[in-house]
């Protein structure tokens, strides 16, 4: 096969992980929500309601695209795209399976993969800010201010929590990080200390912090203050209709998938699972199994996202900011110092 064909196959595979799961997860979210609340949920379109995302898509596309009279037309239409692109871009460096032959199951293998994902995530906030501002609506503006302030506040703790795993693996290459955790049992996962028992507390704390910060980064409950309907109508996408609203909603799921993929890769062993995957086996079947393990991990984490959404009440905004700046930031700094001391002492 020519290199371009291989690259194309890898890109299609990577996109399928994200673009396939994203829309499908909207129905999972609604069914799980209904199940938690003791309702039935959408079950009319197709078997078990599984074609509901398709029906939603048709509905979104067939509605009229309305741009408010006083809105800034260019930025208003640019907003959803600026939110949509970064998660897809970031997923390029997530390894979604073991090697097949000599090829990593990863769209682009960068030596600075972790930094790349972080910098891409940090640009995702522009779409929300510009979209909310361009709507020329006070509620949309307030919603976008809240969303962006929350995201840049939690980005600090998120970055520091990612740094914990990077320090344990001493690499920024996501492939290297995953391979170090593969094939050596659960103890080698970075969440359980990356093979050193003395690092176990740092790993657990780092993963916990990262998970909560990821909830806040994705504007998910209990941190979805940017769109709490009781105060702000609908948040930064109040004025959006038709497919541009659909793109906003879809990008929320895409960035959830990116976050879960990143957490899985750097803390939970990526595509590896003791007893199921064999890192030295580079056959096609083993590659598919490792891919299935990776997707199972991502989907389980997203299930926890939904579970949390329908279990915990929403925070107040001052509580959110206090938590981010006064609890998580010091905790992650202490965690880094602790891990550095352990690393220097070499225990």
């Amino acid at each position, binding site marked *: 096969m020519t290199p371009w064909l291989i690259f194309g196959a890898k890109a299609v595979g990577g996109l399928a992980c994200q673009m396939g799961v994203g829309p499908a997860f909207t129905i999972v979210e609604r069914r799980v929500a209904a199940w938690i609340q003791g309702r039935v949920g959408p079950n009319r379109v197709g078997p078990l309601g599984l074609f509901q995302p398709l029906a939603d898509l048709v509905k979104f596309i067939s509605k009229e695209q309305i741009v408010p009279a006083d809105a*800034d037309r260019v*930025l208003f239409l640019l907003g959803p795209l600026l939110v949509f692109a970064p998660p897809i871009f970031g997923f390029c460096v997530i390894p979604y399976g073991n090697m097949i032959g000599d090829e990593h199951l990863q769209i682009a293998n*960068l*030596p*600075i993969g972790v*930094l*790349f994902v*972080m*910098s*891409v995530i*940090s*640009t995702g*906030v*522009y779409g929300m*800010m*510009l979209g*909310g*501002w361009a709507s020329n609506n006070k509620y949309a*503006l307030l919603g*976008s*201010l809240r969303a*962006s*302030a929350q995201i*840049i506040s939690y*980005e600090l703790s998120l970055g520091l929590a990612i740094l914990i795993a990077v320090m344990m693996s001493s690499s*920024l290459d996501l492939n290297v990080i995953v391979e170090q955790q593969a094939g050596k049992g659960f103890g080698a996962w970075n969440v359980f200390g990356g093979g050193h028992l003395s690092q176990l507390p740092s790993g657990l704390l780092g993963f916990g912090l990262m998970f909560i910060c990821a909830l806040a980064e994705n504007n998910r409950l209990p941190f979805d203050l940017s769109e709490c309907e009781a105060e702000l109508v609908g948040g930064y996408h109040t004025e959006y209709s038709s497919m541009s609203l659909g793109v906003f909603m879809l990008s929320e799921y895409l960035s959830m998938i990116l976050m879960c993929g990143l957490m899985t890769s750097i803390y939970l062993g990526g595509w590896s699972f003791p007893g199921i995957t064999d890192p030295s086996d580079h056959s096609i079947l083993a590659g598919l199994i490792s891919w299935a393990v990776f997707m199972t991990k991502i989907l389980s984490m997203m299930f926890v996202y939904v579970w949390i959404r329908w279990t915990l009440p929403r925070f107040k905004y001052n509580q959110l900011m206090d938590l981010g700046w006064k609890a998580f930031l010091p905790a992650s700094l202490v965690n880094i110092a602790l891990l550095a001391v352990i690393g220097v002492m070499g225990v």
Partner: protein
Amino acid sequence: MTDPVFLITSLVAVGSAVAAVTRRNPVYAAVWLLICFLSFAVILLQMAAPFLAAIHVLVYTGAILVLFVFVIMLLNLKDDELGEEYGTGVWAAASALSLGLFGLMAWPILADPKLSAPLPELPADFGSVEAVGRVLFVEYGLPFELVSLLIVVAMFGAMVLAKKRLWA
């Protein structure tokens, strides 16, 4: 020098920088500045500095420019609050001044024979995280720590300015 990717990215960088300066609407100026920063990152990637490129995006577009946009959105100026449009004389003077400054910087670079000679072979790990880290923390360890001290002092300054009652 005739690399087409470099040519395109540098043209985009210069064009968006000019647009950022000349836009009247501050939000559009910020958007052009965003494009300018991103094209810088691409140029850095081409110069075998991937670490610098990632940090550039992380710090400049992910943090600094977000704060700019934040302030612009909070002020949310109307058209009549933006002040008088500058006359042609001001534009001409500003352009002449910036072109002169550019010439002043470009002239010694172009005149120096050392800089027009072909570059020496770069070490294999040039621009990687390890190489940058070694230079920062080993070779220039003391200056690096002094700079971080400076940043801490600046942070305290910001806190003192922001707090209304310091000991409350």
